[in-house]
């Protein structure tokens, strides 16, 4: 391998010295690249989280809450908060703010708030309850999360998350969330994602659904009482910023096509993750980056966009028609054995391949963890065997997950008890019976750790703009642990935001706005112009055809494994494809009523811009960390190699204009309580 050694600077490391001088006398520009001398980014002022208290970590959250200003109940009625999104984060936040007496207006693009993508989460939610007396504690959950994130998250935030986790379970149980229970009537828990304790609470394979219905019902109660006004089938297409404060949004009514403006004293974005930039992912079809990307364009910094999580056990692509990928729970790896034929091109049916011609590659490569290595490692290993021509199934992009041994050992009925519903789901989709033939699985994009930069109060760099749930970057560093997204979404929505937003709202209400305000007019005009441009192209390619192609570029070059050359190639391809998109896209119909192609077109247009920033971020971070694997930065055993000396920071990107290089602001990370170490699973 002739790539830089760990610790050696890649040529795009932001401290390279080939640029012109900026405000600090130290702004660099990347050297020209092969695609024609484009400057990739410049280095700006560092950024700091000014809201996080210092001092003993155990009392930081308590002290922040005590120091934060309060809003008295009579004044809350005069303050309006817009919440975009009704998933676990947005649903719980809107309900709680309504209960506290604020005037809340809530938005989602689906026909009902209950359908937010959180509904699809399967496995469970972590909480440091230590009901099992197995050595769990807030401290251990904090430690596991910082380590799991490969030391790229903030200690203060993660510590708070671990503390709040215990309250979430109390809250959900009080709402009637039917978690799994033991015969004695106590809550059951299981282990998840390699943790050594059993701290994951679950409701069969439908934990997200049950938690979301809890939040949704609380939200509906507030709607019924007139404290929250719900706007379903509305999509936020722009953020309104007046006098430097986030003051409202421009929305399109997806049924009538009407473009309207809504004003408030604060805006909360809870719009979920951006995994659909890859086109194929386990996300719902409508998941998008538009809300956060529009805010980014208005000045909110976007942090760590290249940190994406790829889940190893998904049902493989079956053909060009594929529209999304389905996750098969990680728990299957407890009893299933992963293998491929030893010989490339061996296309015999799996049961005809004798034992000694099979390669149980995870067991071979990771003898102590075997099939249970962490997500990123299992995913990459599967990709490598497929790249070497040994993948299975029609497309060659799949590996076997075989239950034959487990069925022999435990009997069919035990396996049916454990995984029956997953086996059925698999059979429904593939038409194959996993009791008889091994499952075929392949990794798929699942979660995005990056998102809008927020401080400890969950406030973005635009005052009055708060970002919660998967939409922010806050707590998972470079890799999220299983069952921790639900925990974070609900921590943000039920407990953190409702406390911290008061500190900001205490200065309100702010000046009343009207549709005629110049900033409002400008924001609305931007939206209508964009929509008209999309409708006016009338080219010869569908929105989906562009989205698919963009996704393929991202998957090939900004997916499981990234290289300098691949990322540069991707950047050039994305730019060329984006130009094509704006010339050749065909959006049928008009903007006057329900037009699903127009909705998609707007989302894909924003994905194009995000995709570029992801590649720039991935290119600049020449280390490997968590879900970001740079082929140039690996240990001799082929594992991710961090470079703490140069990259122990959050990369927060500033938008400077279309086709202008973004500005990088670094927030240095400090580890006082958990000391960075190298992960090993051999």
């Amino acid at each position, binding site marked *: 391998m002739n790539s830089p050694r760990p610790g050696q600077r890649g040529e795009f490391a932001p401290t390279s010295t080939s640029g012109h001088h900026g405000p600090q006398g130290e702004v660099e520009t990347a050297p020209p690249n092969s695609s024609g001398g484009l400057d990739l980014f410049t280095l700006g002022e560092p950024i700091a989280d000014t809201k996080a208290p210092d001092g003993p970590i155990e009392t930081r959250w308590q002290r922040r809450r005590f120091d934060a200003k309060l809003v008295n109940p009579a004044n809350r009625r005069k303050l309006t908060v817009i919440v975009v999104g009704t998933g676990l984060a947005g649903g719980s936040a809107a309900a709680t703010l309504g*209960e506290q007496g604020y005037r809340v207006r809530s938005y989602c693009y689906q026909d009902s708030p209950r359908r937010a*993508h959180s509904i699809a989460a399967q496995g469970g939610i972590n909480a440091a309850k230590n009901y099992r007396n197995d050595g769990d504690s807030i401290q251990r959950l904090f430690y596991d999360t910082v380590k799991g994130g490969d030391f790229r998250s903030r200690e203060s935030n993660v510590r708070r998350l671990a503390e709040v986790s215990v309250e979430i379970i109390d*809250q959900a149980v009080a709402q009637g969330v039917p978690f799994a229970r033991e015969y004695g009537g106590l809550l059951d828990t299981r282990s998840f994602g390699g943790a050594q304790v059993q701290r994951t609470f679950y409701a069969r394979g439908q934990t997200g659904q049950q938690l979301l219905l809890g939040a949704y019902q609380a939200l*509906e109660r507030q709607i*019924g009482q007139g404290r929250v006004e719900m706007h379903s089938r509305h999509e936020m297409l722009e953020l309104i910023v007046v006098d430097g404060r986030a003051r409202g949004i421009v929305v399109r009514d997806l049924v009538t096509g009407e473009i309207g403006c809504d004003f408030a004293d604060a805006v909360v974005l809870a719009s979920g993750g951006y995994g659909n930039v890859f086109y194929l992912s386990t996300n719902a079809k409508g998941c998008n980056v538009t809300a956060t990307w529009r805010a980014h364009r208005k000045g909110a910094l976007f942090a760590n966009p290249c940190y994406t999580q790829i889940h190893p056990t998904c049902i493989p692509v079956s053909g060009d028609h594929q529209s999304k990928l389905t996750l098969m729970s990680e728990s299957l790896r407890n009893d299933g054995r992963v293998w491929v034929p030893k010989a490339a091109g061996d296309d015999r049916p799996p049961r005809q391949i004798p034992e000694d011609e099979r390669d149980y590659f995870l067991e071979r490569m990771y003898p102590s963890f075997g099939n249970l290595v962490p997500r990123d490692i299992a995913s990459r290993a599967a990709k490598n065997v497929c790249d070497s021509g040994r993948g299975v199934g029609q497309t060659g992009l799949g590996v076997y997950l075989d239950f034959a041994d487990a069925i022999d050992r435990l009997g069919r009925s035990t396996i049916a008890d454990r995984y029956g519903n997953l086996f059925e789901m698999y059979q429904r989709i593939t038409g194959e019976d996993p009791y008889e033939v091994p499952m075929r699985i392949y990794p798929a994009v699942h979660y995005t750790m990056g998102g809008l930069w927020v401080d400890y109060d969950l406030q973005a760099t635009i005052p009055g703009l708060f970002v919660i749930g998967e939409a922010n970057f806050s707590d998972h560093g470079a890799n999220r642990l299983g069952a921790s997204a639900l925990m974070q979404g609900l921590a943000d929505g039920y407990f953190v935001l409702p406390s911290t937003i008061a500190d900001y709202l205490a200065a309100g209400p702010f000046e009343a706005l009207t549709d005629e305000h110049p900033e409002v007019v400008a924001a609305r005009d931007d939206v209508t112009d964009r929509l008209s441009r999309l409708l006016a192209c009338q080219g010869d390619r569908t929105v989906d055809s562009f989205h698919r192609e963009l996704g393929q570029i991202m998957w090939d070059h900004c997916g499981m494994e990234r290289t300098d050359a691949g990322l540069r190639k991707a950047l050039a391809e994305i730019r060329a494809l984006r130009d094509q998109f704006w010339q050749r896209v065909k959006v049928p119909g008009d903007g006057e009523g329900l037009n699903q*192609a127009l909705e998609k077109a707007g989302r894909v247009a924003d994905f194009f811009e995000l995709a570029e920033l992801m590649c720039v971020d991935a290119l600049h971070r020449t280390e490997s960390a968590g879900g970001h694997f740079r082929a140039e930065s690996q240990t001799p055993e082929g594992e991710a190699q961090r470079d703490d000396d140069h990259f122990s920071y959050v990369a927060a990107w500033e938008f400077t204009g279309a086709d202008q290089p973004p500005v990088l602001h670094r927030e240095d990370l400090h580890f006082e309580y958990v000391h960075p170490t190298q992960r090993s699973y051999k």
Partner: protein
Amino acid sequence: MNLTLRIWRQTGPDDPGRMVSYQVPDVSPDMSFLEMLDVLNDRLTLDGEAPVAFDHDCREGICGACGMVINGVAHGPERATTACQLHMRHFRDGQTIDIEPWRAKAFPVIKDLVVDRSAFDRIVAAGGYITAPTGAAPEAHAQLVRKSDADAAFESAACIGCGACVAACPNGSAMLFTAAKVSHLSLLPQGQPERSTRVVGMIDAHDAEGFGGCTNIGECTAVCPKGIPLTSIGRLNRDYLKATRDRDGAPAT
């Protein structure tokens, strides 16, 4: 395989609507039903025709967004399967497939296969919750719940709010949907304090939204993708009777 689709096209609430035929060649048996519609829509778009509007999001049978009547059956021929999880291997070459929206008074058509199901949200807002303001919850283990009760509550809570039950019911009743929520919450100890107000509030909202009454026909459970049993309607009826008796006072003796 090659298929003929006859799809309900309706440009908006004021359009009377009609069935329109389309040929779809080269359908792969591995496609999902919605992917087959994607292929049709791509072609319609490039031909300058309006694509067919239909609701969908998760495409894995959990969000409840998708829903269409396929050859006369809500969600199509596979039992316990949403339209998005239905695959083309269950159809044969040369087949004609009729695709229509949910039809019910309380679910007006917005466009093509898209209907307005917001009445469901209003039924929930009328009592389908447990009042537990954030921060006021007791420690989760303060109250034990029998495993059998928790499991039964879960079975009812699994409803995805798709509306197939309403579409299948000759009366256009949403009783299965309402009963699923009532059962979920009334099976749990936390749900007891509001047990009576909940069922009355939800039933009143159900009737006000224009859903029909339940005459125990059972078409609803037959199409329900989550297998919500008819017995939950029995539980709702008992709760309702008790609640209204309590409310109206016991009859004089």
